[in-house]
């Protein structure tokens, strides 16, 4: 009998040791993650702090590292993200409403509905560089339907007007912003869907019972309740757009630009591209400028993320 007891308590002991050991592994893993992040942020801060001044924020790119600035890239980023937001947000929310609030009952339509849903899941997984190629072909060259290069096929206004439009778009702000729109659209759709799904059905039924049409129900009841969730998702999607480099690299390339865009077709550069350019140069001093640029970029992103968190906290019940 004692034998059995001993083996049992021995087994028990081994199990407890295993348990303790696993905690150590867990803490080790968490420590590795946290220290990596500290090294990441620390190295960037260490390299970038001394260049972080007015010159960087207001200056234009330069061949001399201590004179280099990120101002044109910053404005370029703001412009393409504006185009991206204006086009992606209504489209994204519209698609989310269609998918969540207007679920068809007819079997064929229901199958179509499921197909759209699956399609959006797939779009969310497409690498952004592929969207860059899509944007290049569809927006910049317009499938070469209107001739390649040289003079545009059709124009509206002149380069003096902000709304100057030409077909094909060329490598301008509009093409860049629309390409970013393709990248963030699935993210906005999926997060808006989640926000709409979180609205209790009782609200919908109440509105319908009072004689509201389906759209009135959505516009007056569901959508207002879902706004905080949609906003959070949208802000996170926009922060993705701000940092996205690969599709913009394909659209705009690495270009030396010292001015800010004046119209929708104007050439531009964006912050991630400028950072990519500096990071790729062999001189140490440019790495420091790149690090400073990263600090500015991360500061903007943190502001966006903080806004999202605040909105969620404020409206969370």
């Amino acid at each position: 009998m004692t034998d059995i007891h001993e083996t049992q308590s021995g087994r028990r002991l081994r199990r407890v040791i295993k348990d303790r050991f696993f905690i150590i592994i867990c803490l080790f893993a968490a420590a590795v993650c946290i220290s990596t992040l500290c090294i990441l942020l620390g190295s960037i801060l260490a390299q970038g702090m001394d260049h972080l001044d007015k010159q960087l924020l207001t200056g234009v790119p330069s061949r001399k590292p201590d004179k280099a600035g990120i101002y044109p890239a910053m404005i370029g980023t703001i412009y393409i993200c504006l185009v991206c937001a204006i086009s992606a947000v209504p489209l994204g929310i519209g698609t989310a409403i269609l998918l969540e609030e207007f679920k068809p009952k007819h079997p064929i339509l229901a199958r179509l509905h499921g197909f759209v849903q699956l399609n959006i899941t797939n779009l969310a997984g497409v690498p952004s560089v592929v969207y860059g190629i899509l944007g290049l072909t569809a927006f910049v060259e317009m499938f070469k339907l209107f001739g390649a290069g040289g003079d545009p096929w059709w124009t509206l206004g002149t380069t003096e007007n902000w709304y100057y439009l030409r077909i094909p778009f060329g490598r301008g702000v509009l093409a860049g912003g629309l390409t970013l729109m393709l990248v963030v659209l699935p993210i906005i759709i999926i997060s808006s869907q989640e926000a709409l799904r979180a609205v209790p059905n009782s609200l919908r039924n109440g509105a319908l019972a009072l004689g509201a049409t389906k759209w009135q129900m959505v516009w007056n009841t569901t959508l207002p309740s879902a706004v905080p969730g949609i906003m959070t998702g949208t802000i996170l999607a926009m922060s993705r757009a701000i940092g996205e480099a690969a599709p913009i690299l394909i659209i705009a390339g690495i270009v030396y630009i010292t001015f800010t865009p004046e119209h929708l077709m104007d050439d531009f550069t964006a912050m991630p591209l400028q950072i990519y350019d500096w990071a790729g140069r062999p001189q140490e001093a440019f790495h420091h400028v790149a690090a400073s640029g990263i600090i500015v970029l991360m500061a903007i992103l943190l502001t966006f993320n903080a806004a999202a968190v605040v909105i969620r906290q404020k409206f969370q019940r």
Partner: protein
Amino acid sequence: MLSRSTGILAAAAIAAALSLFVGNSSAQAEELKGAVKIDGSSTVYPITEAVAEEFGAEHRHVRVTVGISGTGGGFKRFSVGETDISDASRPIKKKELDVAVENGVQFIEIPVAYDGLTIVVNHDNDFIKSLTVDDLKKIFLDGTTVKTWKDVNPAYPAIDIKIYAPGTDSGTFDYFKEVVAGSDGSIRSDMSVSEDDNVLVRGVAGDKGAIGFFGCAYYFENTDKLRAVAIDGGNGPVLPAKDTIEGGTYAPFSRPLFIYINTKSAERPEVDAFVNFYLENGPELAEEVGYVRLPSQIIELTKKNYAARKTGTQFLDKNGEKIHGPLAEVYK
């Protein structure tokens, strides 16, 4: 819908604040406006970047863009009229000229500096002092069996050779290929290739057995990381330097760099002002970034030719064959 409008408002506010922050220091009387689009060689890029930067300080409202897509990539856009000026580290080719003619693009050809295509090795590499063109053939030709430095010369240690070369679209690659492989030969395929010379500098700087080649400006900018190899073209080893490049003793790798200006674009005052600025300040800036200034008689010639809008290339004969020879003899 709230999110959209607040987003726009916020972004607009930031943009407005920033533009207030910056844009109130320009009140010249007669301001040039407009845009100058430049693309092409990454070898010429440092000069054009410097010129654009200095030009931009004087003419705040002229919007100069300088891209890097290689000499060939630059000509592709230039020959359909997409760009105003094309940077080139070799003269235009027959095929590119044909496309330009087809699209009605006429151009003015201007040499802007001398470059010594520099063969570089790692700074810690102490065994290679000079290489002959035959050595380069051994290393670079397609189908070569050379793997380590020992295979090139038994006196060298058995360290693996890693090659960093400019992209096949660059004039530098074309020029190197023509000298080393001839017009029919080809360069080995197992190299690391990039159109961006900065990538090559970092590659060679990071590997003791590495070899690479690019325009001398990228070497002079990074002499703490790289070492130039003296080239023996038959008359003893010569290092790239101002006098050897200008005098042509750094053979066969000294060559002129060019810009090509679309004649139609040159009618626009901003492009005209930019080119004149280039002709005036280019030699000095070229020297600053590491290239060799052209002799003064050629500089005068370029100014005269530009003023007279002398179109076409002088490096192709009537049959489209390339004309070889020193710049001073070919360029008239």
